């Protein structure tokens, strides 16, 4: 295509995007001459250029728009929603004509007579019948906004302005499929000749000469090369660590630093602010809200949060979908809102920020919220869950049902959403880029959807593990913690539920997956020797489930460059790709979600079998008096509960740390002397036989700034329960008993115990002697 035309297309598409947001802004601030002039200028530029290039149909459409705008500018007409709608329709028409030019080089056969007529009428009388909307081009063809003054943004915006007919791909490498953009040239300013008011030049425009446009392929290649450099650097660093010759060691260190810096800078070139997506939303919200007769205002925060271009591409459609959904389903009609005592205008809030190496995007509305009982009924009706499952599902699990394929709670299907495809696509798209979606909703007050995505896909921190002699990389985003069980304890610590291995992680059962079994790895004699030895558990998070992956050895954490597997191997869900390690060998990257699915940790339809433990606590969730309780062991058999909010800390002291002061056992704790009270003594329960050298388990209780340590015989669990005391006790120190986890458990009366230990908290400055001798 002619260079002139392609320049025109790039420039016009950018301008059109700005028009969208400016028109919506103008609606809220109709008096702004600056906005009006800028809009006028843009249309005028487009009109001028297409006259010059011979696109007469396009010129005609732009012309009526321009005349209308000039009347507005002169103050002969005042802006009304009909005007904005008409002008937005014109923008859409111009956009689709530009699309046509891009494809065929001609401005097409569509002449938009209706639109021209409407705009002319508006010009004459300022009032028209409702306008038939012109179908907006699909989101993928929409283009990034150039309205930023930053160099990189400009470069990348150029990349993004290339229309993408190719389906969006999910990885950085996928960007290579895009058609080559125009060659490098200076950032176009609005040409002065076409600009009737150069003195009103928008304050946001760029300084010429500070930016250049760069082919996005070049950036991708650069990124790949830097990836290679990082790997080579790793190899050299590993080698030089074993050398002593300063002639090698110091340049190697220098290389290390330079490479890291280079990597960071090149990564930045691929970063784009999220405003490239956010800036489209005012228009989307306006259109959807008008379409369903609602009033919605939108607030956006953290628009300059940057993330990798390929990720932006990947989240654009899901975000748009969520925003549409919020307006269409979430926010109520003005009448209903007023009836419910809310402001007639709904409020949609978008917030983006960086949080711990991830980008967090929150979309919250102040609408009706999600009715989980309706979700439940719908899911039952559609057969997505069984009635048995429905009974035991928590609110959170119910909410997550909306991510299932084929789910929609909209009572009536609208044009915009409610066709039952949607949230599952959102979830799939976000999963694909290693992100997560979380949903919170409160009936009557709104819904918040929280999306977390990694900053970049190309280079990720990973944990390198060894299993059966092979190395594997596990992306650190999924990593929760590492647990090591020593060889002698391994047999007793790993227990079996009907043959399925589990580990008690702080009282909760953690299902275990053996990596060698999951991958059917054969063990050589050498690696088989490791089997009986200590076990290392990598605790991983998949969706909202945790599981433990048992591996032979943990090597290190390393920045790895993710490389896609060949198409031949794409079918294997457990692997997310491969990477080249410091020694030049290839290691496979484990896809934690895929592994969890293969191992049935997370079932594919995400309908979870609630574990029996949770079942107990969740079945009673509807109760009001729920309290977190710490379960402790007192004496040999005694099972007792302490309300968790009375517990300051749990500590373990070596027996040598227990000292005596008068009759009282004490220990030094945080610079003070803390009295220790053995619960079994107070309650006169025969204490468990124990070695006097065993460490003591202590529940620290604090009152009025003083602490007392309650010595117990074991910490069992933390549960959430309805506190219903069934058998009020006459005994001092026990409030009564209740059933927890289908066992009778005594609820301790801590203040009474402390009283009976004759520790007096009333005198705030009570000297230690008094405490012990009282």
């Amino acid at each position: 295509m002619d260079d002139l035309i392609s320049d025109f297309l790039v420039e016009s598409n950018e301008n059109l995007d700005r028009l969208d947001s400016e028109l919506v802004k103008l609606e809220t601030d109709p008096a702004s001459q600056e906005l009006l002039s800028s809009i006028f200028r843009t249309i005028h530029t487009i009109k001028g250029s297409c006259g010059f290039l011979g696109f007469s149909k396009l010129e005609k459409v732009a012309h009526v728009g321009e005349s209308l705008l000039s009347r507005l500018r002169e103050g002969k007409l005042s802006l009304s929603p009909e005007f904005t709608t008409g002008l937005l329709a014109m923008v859409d028409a111009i956009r689709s004509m530009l699309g046509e030019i891009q494809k065929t080089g001609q401005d097409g056969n569509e002449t938009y007579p209706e639109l021209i007529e409407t705009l002319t009428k508006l010009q004459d009388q300022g009032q028209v019948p409702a306008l038939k909307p012109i179908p907006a081009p699909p989101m993928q063809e929409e283009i990034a906004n150039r309205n930023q003054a930053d160099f990189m943004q400009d470069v990348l915006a150029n990349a993004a302005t290339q229309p993408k007919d190719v389906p969006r791909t999910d990885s950085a490498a996928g960007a290579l499929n895009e058609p080559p953009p125009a060659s490098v040239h200076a950032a176009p300013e609005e040409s002065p000749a076409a600009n009737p008011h150069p003195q009103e030049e928008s304050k946001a425009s760029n300084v010429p000469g500070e930016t250049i446009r760069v082919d996005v392929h070049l950036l991708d290649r650069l990124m790949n090369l830097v990836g290679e450099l990082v790997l080579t650097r790793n190899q050299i660093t590993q080698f030089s660590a074993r050398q002593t010759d300063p002639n090698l060691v110091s340049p190697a260190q220098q290389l290390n630093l330079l490479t890291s810096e280079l990597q960071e800078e090149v990564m930045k070139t691929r970063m784009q602010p999220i405003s490239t997506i956010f800036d489209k939303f005012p228009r989307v919200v306006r259109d959807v809200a008008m379409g369903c007769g609602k009033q919605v205002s939108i607030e956006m925060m953290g628009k300059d949060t940057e993330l990798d271009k390929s990720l932006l591409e990947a989240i654009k459609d899901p975000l748009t979908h969520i925003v549409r959904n919020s307006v269409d389903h979430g926010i109520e009609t003005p009448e209903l809102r007023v009836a419910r005592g809310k402001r007639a205008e709904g409020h949609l809030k978008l917030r983006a920020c960086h949080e711990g190496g991830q980008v967090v995007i929150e979309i919250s509305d102040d609408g009706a919220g999600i009715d989980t009982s309706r979700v439940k009924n719908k899911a039952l009706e559609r057969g997505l869950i069984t009635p048995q499952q429905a009974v035991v599902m928590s609110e959170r699990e119910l909410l997550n049902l909306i991510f299932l394929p084929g789910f929609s709670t909209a009572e009536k299907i609208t044009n915009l959403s409610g066709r039952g495809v949607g949230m599952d696509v959102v979830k799939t798209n976000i999963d694909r880029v290693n992100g997560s979606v979380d949903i919170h909703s409160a009936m009557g007050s709104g819904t918040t959807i929280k999306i977390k995505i990694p900053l970049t896909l190309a280079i990720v921190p990973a944990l390198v593990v060894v299993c059966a002699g092979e190395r594997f990389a596990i992306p650190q985003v999924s990593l929760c913690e590492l647990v090591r069980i020593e060889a002698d304890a391994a047999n007793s610590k790993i227990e079996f539920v009907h043959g399925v291995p589990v580990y008690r992680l702080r009282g909760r059962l953690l299902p275990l997956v053996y990596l060698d079994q999951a991958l059917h790895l054969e063990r050589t004699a050498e690696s088989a020797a490791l089997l009986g030895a200590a076990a290392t558990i990598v605790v991983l998070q998949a969706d909202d489930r945790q599981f433990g992956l048992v591996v032979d050895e943990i090597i290190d954490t390393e920045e790895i460059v993710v490389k896609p597997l060949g198409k031949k191997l794409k079918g294997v869900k457990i692997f997310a790709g491969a990477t080249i390690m410091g020694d030049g060998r290839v290691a496979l990257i484990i896809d934690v979600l895929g592994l969890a699915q293969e191992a049935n940790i997370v079932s594919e339809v995400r309908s979870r079998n609630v574990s029996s433990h949770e079942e107990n606590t969740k079945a009673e969730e509807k109760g009001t008096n729920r309290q977190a309780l710490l379960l402790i062991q007192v004496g040999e058999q005694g099972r007792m509960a302490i309300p968790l909010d009375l517990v300051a800390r749990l500590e373990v002291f070596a027996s040598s740390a227990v000292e005596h002061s008068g009759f009282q056992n004490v220990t030094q704790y945080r610079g003070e002397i803390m009295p220790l009270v053995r619960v079994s003594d107070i309650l006169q329960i025969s204490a468990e036989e124990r070695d006097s050298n065993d460490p003591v388990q202590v529940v620290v209780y604090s009152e009025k700034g003083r602490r007392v340590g309650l010595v117990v015989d074991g910490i069992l669990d933390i549960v959430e329960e309805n506190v219903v005391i069934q058998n009020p006790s006459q005994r001092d120190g026990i409030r009564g008993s209740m059933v927890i986890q289908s066992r009778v458990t005594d609820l301790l009366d801590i203040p009474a115990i402390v009283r009976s230990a004759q520790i007096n908290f009333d005198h705030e400055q009570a000297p230690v002697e008094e405490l012990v001798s009282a």
Partner: protein
Amino acid sequence: MTQQFCTFFLDGYVFGVQVEQVREVIRYQEMTRVPLVPAVVRGLINLRGQIITAIDLRRRLGMKDLPTGQLPMNVVVRTEDGAISFLVDEIGDVIEVQDDTFEPVPETLQGPAREVVHGVHKLPGRLMLVLDIERAVNPRDLNGHIV
């Protein structure tokens, strides 16, 4: 018309692929095995930063494995889906053949070889089997031959 073929040996047979399809020939590389995939996929190799899947042609053709201790060579070819490495016993010469020495494989050839051998060039004193590389790496076929 003449064509150039890169030849290699498998279990005593001479095979050939068109020179244009061959990216490079390299000696044995250490491989990272890939669990849960058909056995014809021997592993992944690092070719100057690019990760390439290595396919064992002996297994693909239903032949016995190389005796242990004998290391195969890599013939890296270009396929529609990017580079793939074929593991072969030994590399032969690049030879020039005339179109008129070509003949399709006889009907009596059956089994996996039938799928991947495109035809035969009659060379003086021996036959060169022409490999259809796209068929040789077809994942559907690969899955059909889990050894």
